[in-house]
């Protein structure tokens, strides 16, 4: 885990959240670009290198939590966590030889839109394009947002959890798991 403390971030950006479980700073809505610039330029961080950008797709899911009541009894509570989409940045400082600091931008699944951090770290450009390609996240302010891995005509975003791939099963002798399902459905053979 990173030796960097998230505490100094909360001073200029009091709305930033700290996700303890993920060890990540969640950028406040609409301030991601400002926060990124600050992280890059502030003497406490000087995070001049963005090594990795990726997306995470969360479907709506049920979470079981243990809650300790007032009388000391432990109860398991089920609650529904709404769906969301995260874009994760791993930041390092080459000058200070520190890192990583994890920065997340959170958005919804239906119309995912986050701020592009390419103006701050040039290395985000291709990786944000990849997240756009595979997750369908729009990066506002990206200089050249188009598909990078799939071809331009491609429909859909394959890394989203609700993506259904085209049915182009080809017969194989020992199908198993999902391929077995396809095999049993397999009427089209190409």
């Amino acid at each position, binding site marked *: 885990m990173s030796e960097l403390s998230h505490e100094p971030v909360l001073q200029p950006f009091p709305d930033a959240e700290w996700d303890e479980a993920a060890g990540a700073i969640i950028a406040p809505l609409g301030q991601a670009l400002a926060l990124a610039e600050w992280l890059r330029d502030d003497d406490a961080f000087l995070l001049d290198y963005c090594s990795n950008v990726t997306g995470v797709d969360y479907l709506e899911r049920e979470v079981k939590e243990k809650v300790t009541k007032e009388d000391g009894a432990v109860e398991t509570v089920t609650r529904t966590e709404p769906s969301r989409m995260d874009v994760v940045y791993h930041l390092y400082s080459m000058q200070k030889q520190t890192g990583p600091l994890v920065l997340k931008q959170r958005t919804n699944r239906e119309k995912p839109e986050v701020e592009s951090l390419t103006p701050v770290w040039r290395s985000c450009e291709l990786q944000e394009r990849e997240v756009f390609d595979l997750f369908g996240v729009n990066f506002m302010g990206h200089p050249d947002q188009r598909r990078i*891995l799939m071809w*331009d005509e*491609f429909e859909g975003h*394959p890394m989203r959890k609700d993506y259904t791939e085209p049915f*182009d099963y080809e*017969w194989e002798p020992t199908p198993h798991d999902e391929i077995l399902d396809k095999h049993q459905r397999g009427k089209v*053979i190409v």
Partner: protein
Amino acid sequence: MTTPNTSPGIDLDDTTRAELERAGVIVSKVDYLYNWARGGSVWPLTFGLACCAIEMIASATSRFDISRFGSEVFRPTPRQADLMIVSGTVTKKMAPQVVRIFNQMPEPKWVIAMGACAISGGPFKQGYNVLKGIDRYIPVDVYLPGCPPRPEAVLQSLNYLQEKIRTQDIKSDPAFTKGRRQYPVPEFTGTDLEPPYNPEVWQPPANPNVKPLEEEATA
């Protein structure tokens, strides 16, 4: 190695031939000479797609040395190459470019499909983004299985190809009679390539467990 394609048309047994050779006379067919020369100077295309390409490169290094078999000159342009080693996963995005490069190669030309992915899609076969074998679009001469195949296997596949070259007949082989073979370059659509395969070079395998749609409708 046996030398096929030497005796037809020339009624010489091996002893007579050897005797003549001792006297400094070589009796041969143009086919044989021509194929011998071509088989010994197969120039592959400098062209790699995935991890198999590393093994292909290794086969050109001094430890394995593909030049012992006359293939040392990896050409940087398809217009000077005889052999296309399709080394690695052919993604659907890359497939049209592979066909286009094949089209640019002059005759006679050969193709080695190297590795599980190039042969059939390999572990990615039922995925959405990988072509289920390059033989759907271009004719493959030698299938080289492995994941990835060792450089020795690359050399052996070259040997098989040379054997194949030695049996070619200049008068009837399509490489010499049909002009430069060119195949249609597939186009991108929303989900797949169009057409999904070239029926001229490949037909889908029949699924023995599934009846064709028409039969099912009538049953």
